[in-house]
C-alpha cells in the first residue's frame, strides 16, 4: 500500500475520530429524520409493521383546514415565545451585569440563579410553578411596587396587563438560568483595560455600557437569543409539544403528529435563520481565527 502523506494521514485520522458520530448520524439522525418526513406525507396502513401509504400533502392540509385547535395554539405559542425571549435576554443581561460587579456572596447568587436549570424540567417544574395563586412575583410586587389595594382602583385592563406581566416574571426568571451564566462568562471575558481607558477619558457608566459592554458581548447576546428560542420551543410546558404527544401517542395518529411537528420545526428554523441574519451584521466579532 502506498504510504500516505502527512496531510492525507491527518485527514484519515480526522475521519477516524469522528467515525462514531458518522455512524450515529445515519442511524440516529438521518434515518429517523427522513422517516419522519416520509411519515408526515403518508398514512399508516398497518400498525404491526408500520407500513405506510403515501398521501401527499393531506396531513398538512389537515393541520390548517380541518384542525380547529392547531392554528390558534400555534399563534399563542409564537406570541408567548416572542415576548418571553425578549424578556429573558434582557433580564439575564441585567442580572449578569449586577452579579458581575464587585459584591460579596457572588457565588451564592450564581448558584441561586442557576438552580432553576437543575430543577426545571418536566413534572418537577410544573409542581413548583403551579403555585401561582400566591406566586412569588405577587409577593414581591405587593411588598415593593404595587400594593394590592392600589390595584383595585386601577382600570381592569391595566390590572390584567400588569398581573400578566408579573405572572410571567417567575416563569421568565426561571428560564433564564443558563443565559445568566453565559452572560456572566462573556462579561468576564471583557478586558478591564477597556474600562480603565474609558474612565481616563471621563466616560460615564451609561456610556461605558453602550459603547463597551454591549458591543463586546454581542456574540453572547446572539447565542442567548437563539438558545432561548430553541429552549422555549422544545420545552415540555409548551402546549404544542403536549399536543403533538397527545395526538401521536394517545390518539395514535402518528402521521398527523409528525406533520405538525414538522410545521413547528420549519417555523423554528425560519425564526432562527431570521434572527441570525438580522444580528449577524451587528455582532462584533473579536475572535476571528
Amino acid at each position, binding site marked *: 500500500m502506498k504510504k500516505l502523506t502527512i496531510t492525507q494521514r491527518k485527514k484519515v485520522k480526522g475521519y477516524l475520530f469522528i467515525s*462514531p458520530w458518522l455512524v450515529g448520524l445515519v442511524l440516529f439522525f438521518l434515518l429517523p429524520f427522513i422517516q419522519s418526513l416520509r411519515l408526515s406525507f403518508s398514512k399508516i396502513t398497518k400498525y404491526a409493521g408500520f407500513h405506510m401509504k403515501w398521501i401527499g400533502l393531506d396531513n398538512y392540509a389537515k393541520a390548517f383546514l380541518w384542525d380547529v385547535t392547531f392554528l390558534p395554539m400555534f399563534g399563542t405559542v409564537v406570541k408567548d415565545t416572542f415576548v418571553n425571549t425578549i424578556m429573558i435576554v434582557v433580564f439575564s443581561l441585567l442580572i449578569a451585569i449586577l452579579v458581575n460587579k464587585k459584591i460579596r456572596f457572588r457565588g451564592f447568587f450564581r448558584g441561586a*440563579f442557576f438552580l432553576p436549570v437543575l430543577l426545571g*424540567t*418536566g413534572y418537577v417544574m410544573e409542581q413548583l410553578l403551579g403555585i401561582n395563586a400566591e406566586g412569588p412575583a405577587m409577593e414581591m410586587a405587593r411588598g415593593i411596587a404595587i400594593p394590592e389595594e392600589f390595584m383595585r382602583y386601577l382600570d381592569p385592563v391595566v390590572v390584567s396587563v400588569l398581573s400578566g406581566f408579573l405572572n410571567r416574571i417567575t416563569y421568565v426568571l426561571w428560564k433564564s438560568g443558563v443565559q445568566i451564566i453565559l452572560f456572566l462568562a462573556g462579561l468576564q471575558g471583557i478586558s478591564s483595560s477597556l474600562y480603565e481607558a474609558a474612565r481616563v477619558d471621563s466616560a460615564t457608566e451609561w456610556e461605558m455600557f453602550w459603547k463597551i459592554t454591549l458591543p463586546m458581548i454581542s456574540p453572547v447576546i446572539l447565542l442567548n437569543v437563539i438558545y432561548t428560542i430553541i429552549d422555549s420551543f422544545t420545552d415540555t410546558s409548551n402546549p404544542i409539544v403536549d399536543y403533538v404527544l397527545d395526538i401521536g401517542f394517545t390518539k395514535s395518529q402518528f402521521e398527523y403528529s409528525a406533520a405538525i411537528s414538522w410545521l413547528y420545526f420549519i417555523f423554528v428554523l425560519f425564526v432562527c435563520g431570521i434572527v441570525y441574519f438580522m444580528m449577524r451584521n451587528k455582532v462584533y466579532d473579536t475572535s476571528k481565527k
Partner: protein
Amino acid sequence: MIGKVISPAAAIGRKGKKVVRRVASVRRWADLILRLAIYILLFDLAFVFLYPFILMVVNSLKSPKDLLDITVKIIPTSFYWKNYKIAFSSLNYAGAAKNSLVITALTTLGHILACSMIAYGFARFRFPGREFFFLIVLFSVIVPIQVLIFPYYMQFSKWGWLNTYLPLIVPTFFGFGLRGGLYIFIFRQFFMGLPNELEEAATIDGCGAFRTYWSIVLPISRASTLVVGVLSMVWHWNDCFEPGIYLTKQKLWPVPINIPNMYATLKALSSGQTDEFLMEGEVLFNEGIVFAGTFMVILPILVIYLILQRQFMEGIEHTGIVG
C-alpha cells in the same frame, strides 16, 4: 456615578486638599448607596428565584393541619416527616432511584467519552467536509425531539429495544442522545483553545493520535469534562420525555416519571383501606406529600450541584464557549 470623574490630582491644584476630601466623601456615599441598591435588587431577585423552591421544602414538612392553616406560611409548627415516608413508598423511590442512577451514569459516560473524541476530531484535524459536518452537529441540537420521536419509536420497536434502556444509552455513545451535539460543541471550543505545543511534543515523543488524545488532552480537559458531566447528569436525571415514551413497564421507570404516578397511587390509597395512615383526609389533599416527593426527586442532583458548583462555573468560563 454622579457627575464626571474628577481625578484627585486635578482637584488639588484648584483649592487644595479641602476640595479633594469633599469630592471623595460625596463619592463614597454615592458608591455606598449604589452598592446597597444593587444588593437589595439582587437579594430580591434571588428570592424570586428561590421562592418556589423554599415553598416546596417548607410545605413538604407541614402536617395536613398546617397546610390548611392560613397563618402558617413559612415556618411549620412541627417537622412532619411522615410526608416523606409516604412519598418514599408511593414514588417507589428505592427502585426508581436505582434505575435513574443506571440511566444517568451510563448516558453521561457515553456522552463524555464519545463527544470528547468526536470533538477532538473536529478541533485538531483538517478533512474535507469538516465545516459541513460540524454544521450538522449544531443542526442536531436545534431539531426538536418531537420531530424525531415517532420514527425513533418505530425504529426501536422494530429492533426490539422498547422497554429497555438501550434507546437512551446507545445514541450517547455515538454523540447523539439528549443534547449530544451541544456537548460536542463545548468540547470542540475547549480543544481549540488549547495550545498546540503539548500535542506537538507528544507527537515528537512518538505518540499516535489516539494516544495523544487519551493520555494528554483528556486529562487536561477537566474543566470541560466537568461542565459536560454536570449538564448531562442533570438533564438525564430530570428527563421524563424519552423514558416516558420508551418505557412502559413501571419497574423500569426512573424517578421523575413517578411523580404523576404519585397522584394515582395516593388516590388509590385514600379511597382504599389501609390503616397505615391516620385519617383518610390526610392522604387526599396532601400537597405536602407531593412536595416531599418532588424534593426527593431533585435531592441527589442538588447535592452534586452544591459540591461541584464552583468548579462548574469556572469550567464554563474556561471552555471558551463565550468570547
